[in-house]
């Protein structure tokens, strides 16, 4: 694109950047505000952060969320890897069209619909088969995995498509069994993408309110559910501190993910 240096353009872009960053910066700054009143700055303090660690409900919800997110991410990567392998190596398999369509559905449908549909499904199976007994961590994991798979498959599939087939062929020609080829050649090469996909699924699960609310049980309040209900009740400074921690945590995860994807792309042997 021709480099047309225009001051107005730079100012407009600058405004948008400011629009994107100012609310978060304000949030982070006020999390250190000693005063409980949002508008007055009364000095720098960590007290809201220490208050967080004394809040048992909060800590339970955070722990539940992390558990759910870790399981979701692992399950989503395993299933997503299998799906991606099938879609890349056997694109003409029977039912590929339906499979691809279903995988992509959570990307397109509002999550309310996915949540409601899954809840109705579980209520139905509970009636028919006696499982699952009420909703809880298990059903949330299933919902999150279904959502995360859609994203994971995209990441892994595009990495697999860039993979030089000659590498695997060379190994096969040298007599390696397909499983060995997978473990010793394919897996190490796509590992950064798997890590990136895992982190993405992890943060997706950690951030979800709607699916969790539909599929949670009496003892399985997740962190986003807790935050959501607290915000509805009213503003407290602890939420600011909590929000800042979440921002930091999620940003670090995504930063790691971005770096792995970037370096895996750079180090990938280019197909000849």
């Amino acid at each position, binding site marked *: 694109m021709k480099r047309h240096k225009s001051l107005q353009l730079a100012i407009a872009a600058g405004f948008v950047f400011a629009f994107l960053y100012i*609310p978060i910066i304000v949030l982070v700054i006020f999390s250190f505000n000693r005063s409980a009143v949002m508008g007055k700055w009364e000095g720098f303090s960590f007290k809201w952060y220490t208050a967080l660690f004394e809040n048992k409900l909060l800590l339970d919800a955070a722990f539940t969320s992390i558990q759910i997110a870790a399981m979701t991410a692992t399950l989503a990567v395993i299933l997503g890897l299998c799906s991606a392998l099938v879609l890349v190596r056997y694109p003409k398999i029977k039912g590929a069209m339906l499979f691809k369509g279903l995988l992509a559905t959570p990307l397109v449908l509002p999550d309310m619909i996915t949540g409601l549909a899954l809840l109705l499904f579980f209520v139905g199976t509970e009636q028919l088969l006696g499982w699952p007994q009420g909703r809880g961590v298990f059903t949330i994991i299933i919902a999150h995995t279904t959502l995360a798979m859609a994203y994971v498959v995209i990441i892994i599939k595009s990495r697999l498509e860039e993979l030089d087939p000659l590498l695997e062929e060379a190994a096969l020609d040298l007599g390696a069994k397909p499983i060995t080829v997978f473990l010793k050649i394919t897996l190490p090469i796509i590992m950064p993408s798997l890590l990136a996909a895992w982190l993405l699924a992890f943060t997706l699960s950690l951030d979800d309110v709607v699916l969790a609310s539909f599929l949670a049980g009496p003892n399985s309040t997740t962190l986003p559910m807790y935050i959501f209900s607290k915000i509805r009740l009213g503003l407290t400074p602890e*939420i600011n501190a909590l929000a800042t921690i979440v921002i930091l945590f999620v940003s670090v995860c995504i930063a790691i993910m971005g770096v792995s994807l970037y370096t895996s792309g750079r180090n990938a042997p280019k197909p000849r």
Partner: protein
Amino acid sequence: MKTYNSRLEKISLAVFPYLWVIFFLAIPLVILLKISFSEPIIGKPPYSDMLTWMDDHVLLIKVTLINFFSIFQDDLYVFTYMNSIQIALISTIFSLILGYPVAYFIATCDPKWRMTLLMLIMLPFWSSFLIRIYAWVLLLSPTGIINSFLMHLGLIGSALPLGSNSVAVIIGIVYCYLPFMILPLYASLQKIDPLLLEAAYDLGCHPFKAFCKVTLPLSYKGILSGSMLIFIPAVGEFVIPELLGGPETLTIGRILWGEFFHNRDWPISAAIAVALMILTIVPLMIIQRLQRGDHEAS
């Protein structure tokens, strides 16, 4: 050339994901459809059965259409759908207005800065959806930063209702979904051949006119993808209208939630969901058809 051809491998890889999406996506969606055709009853589960075996080997199939009739005839639902579409449309337009200059700026700036600028755009986006909405609640709420600050300065007597109306919802949606507009726009803008613009300038075309007649039409694919990526999720949004909207900001997401969790009316929630699905799938299919037509033409 050795190709992958092991049936065992193919089946063993495909079976689990395939069963997963069938059981946890396809079947639930079918069940959703089925329940939208039933009646709410007091009981567990709170909907009537569609199929009932009567005494002398008769299968009674009851398809209740009342939910859909309610949706289409009740003014409240019609208004809500229209309102949701309106909010989503306005949000999309504002995202376009705000996002285009940024995408254009990044696409035309020094290549060595582009990656960094794109990362800067994405960074706020990566810090949790819920928290970013909360940032605006914090700013706009009656006890939030703007109001407290103004009251502290004595400029206003009581809090301004900044954070509970449709405008706040639109701000929230634009704030959360803006990167979805900037990225596709950037992708299609940076593909435009600079020679085309140069040719226009050489022929004496004013830069702004050149933009309208050359750049804008050539970037329509980015405009379309970006708009779809914002409009479709925005119609079904719940969290943003719930936290930033007022009692009169009715959107489908909130109505669905209310019907399900507060009224315990599962069949109508299902019907609302089915109608929402149709509302979101139809524009998507139109776009797909247009895009496929493009590929065939080129």
